[in-house]
């Protein structure tokens, strides 16, 4: 499965990555190589095999719906790039 620069540009956009022109060429090459490697999976017929998402097939645990965590807003926000009045600041998204 060969990718072209347009494909890689699209993937980068999906992943919110900005890829420069020289990087693009190298990624087209290495991603194509990896998809070739991955393509070896087709050597095995897996029709009817139930997919395994997880090593422990048991269902996820449930717990009581009660508050167990303390409020640590301040210590969490101390490490944020930008906060104000307990809120995380990002560039304006609504005009």
């Amino acid at each position: 499965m060969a990718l072209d620069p347009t494909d890689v540009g699209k993937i980068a956009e999906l992943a919110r990555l900005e890829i420069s022109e020289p990087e693009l060429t190298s990624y087209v090459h290495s991603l194509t190589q990896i998809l070739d490697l991955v393509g070896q999976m087709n050597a095995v017929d897996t029709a009817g095999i139930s997919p395994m998402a997880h090593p422990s097939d048991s269902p996820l645990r449930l717990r009581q719906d009660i508050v167990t965590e303390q409020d640590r807003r301040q210590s969490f926000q101390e490490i944020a790039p930008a906060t104000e009045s307990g809120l995380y600041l990002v560039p304006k998204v609504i005009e």
Partner: protein
Amino acid sequence: MHRKTIVELQAALEAGQISSVELTQAFLDRIDHHQDLNAFITITAEAALEQARASDDRRDHEAPRPLEGIPIAHKDIFCTQGLITSCGSRMLANFVSPYDATVIQHFKAAGAIILGKTNMDEFAMGSSNETSFYGPVKNPWANQAVPGGSSGGSAAAVAAQLAPAATGTDTGGSIRQPAALCGITGLKPTYGRVSRYGMVAFASSLDQAGPMTHTAADAALLLNIMAGFDPKDSTSVDKPVPDYTATLNDGLKGLRVGLPKEYFGDGLAADVAQAIDASVETLKKLGANIVDISLPNSTLAVPCYYVLAPAEASSNLSRFDGVRYGYRAADYDDLNDMYRKTRSQGFGEEVKRRIMIGAYTLSAGYYDAYYLKAQQLRRLIADDFHTAFGQCDVILGPTTPTTAFDLGAKTDDPVSMYLNDIYTIPANLAGLPGMSIPAGLGEDGRPIGLQLIGNAFEEARLLNVAHQYQQATDHHKQTPEGY
């Protein structure tokens, strides 16, 4: 003192031959002296000595805790309150964790001292420690060689005796492969045995933490501390933890050791094959019976893994957006541009590559061909192990196809780098415990690792076999020249 095992250090502390402060200082001096290895990202000298003083005081009037006063290094993937937890990435280079990972809490409660945080491949994505934002780690056995990865700093630190033990994590071989390449003992437990809480996530259905030590006996001691149910990890398994040291001395008579033919085929270097054959002979002398087995689908474990792990990574790493913690780009036009610039500048080349592979295989139109197919193959690989454990008690093979390769040898060819994990990845996919122990030196004088894989939750048996092997051999006592 630095040549002693933890079991020996405990005895020396107990007998009053040395204090924790003296011991901690001795290792800090060694870390400082061997900074050229680049094994550490953060060295916590002052805090370590303070913890050691508190431990010595405590020992005077209270019964010692299981690892009282023993200094240990932690892979920089474990969140440690008040310390930088970088995960080897520029993205987290400024991240001071506001909490401790469960593994770290366990070590603190057991009385262990934190020497520092060890270098690693960025977000644990690599097999050579060369993807670290902090630069590669050197292998103490040959400074031009890689230490393996992703827990390369931990492996090099233990091999060079900068720490008596270290923690690591293993998603596709990241404990076992560097343990093999640096000539130490490393154990990846069963998925769910050790809590993942506070361990920066790479591929959540594969990640597992474990000990990296000189001996199996030390690994048992550390696993006793690390293992256990944790309600904070949704995939933690609520199963009693045995005393892993209790069965170390059991005999191996009648033990069925399975040799998978797929682990001895093309691509395995002759010197590695020879060392593994010699190990098989040693186990036979100890009373083990050898059984030929087959893991037919394990040959496709690497392709399967390179769909599943990047898919999970692309999802896990979407949290790094420059909003709540970590790196944020300096200049941007709008919110989307902030995301793009933050992630492009914060992540290194290999991490971006894996995120893109994951984004691609999960995208509309490709999901069935890649992700679903890989999950089906994962089932077949796990079923192979299930069949094999009907015929044998442990599986034995090489940890890696070759000894440590040179720095830079595989950096331009990601696929050849990925293939280094061909023997370690199957156990991750199946969620099974695996160990690497030293099995001698190759023609180039670099260490060879012997891998043992056990059935789910049979860590005690792996440790028993490894310990008996280490009683009969001295490969684990070899140290690199100059250390």
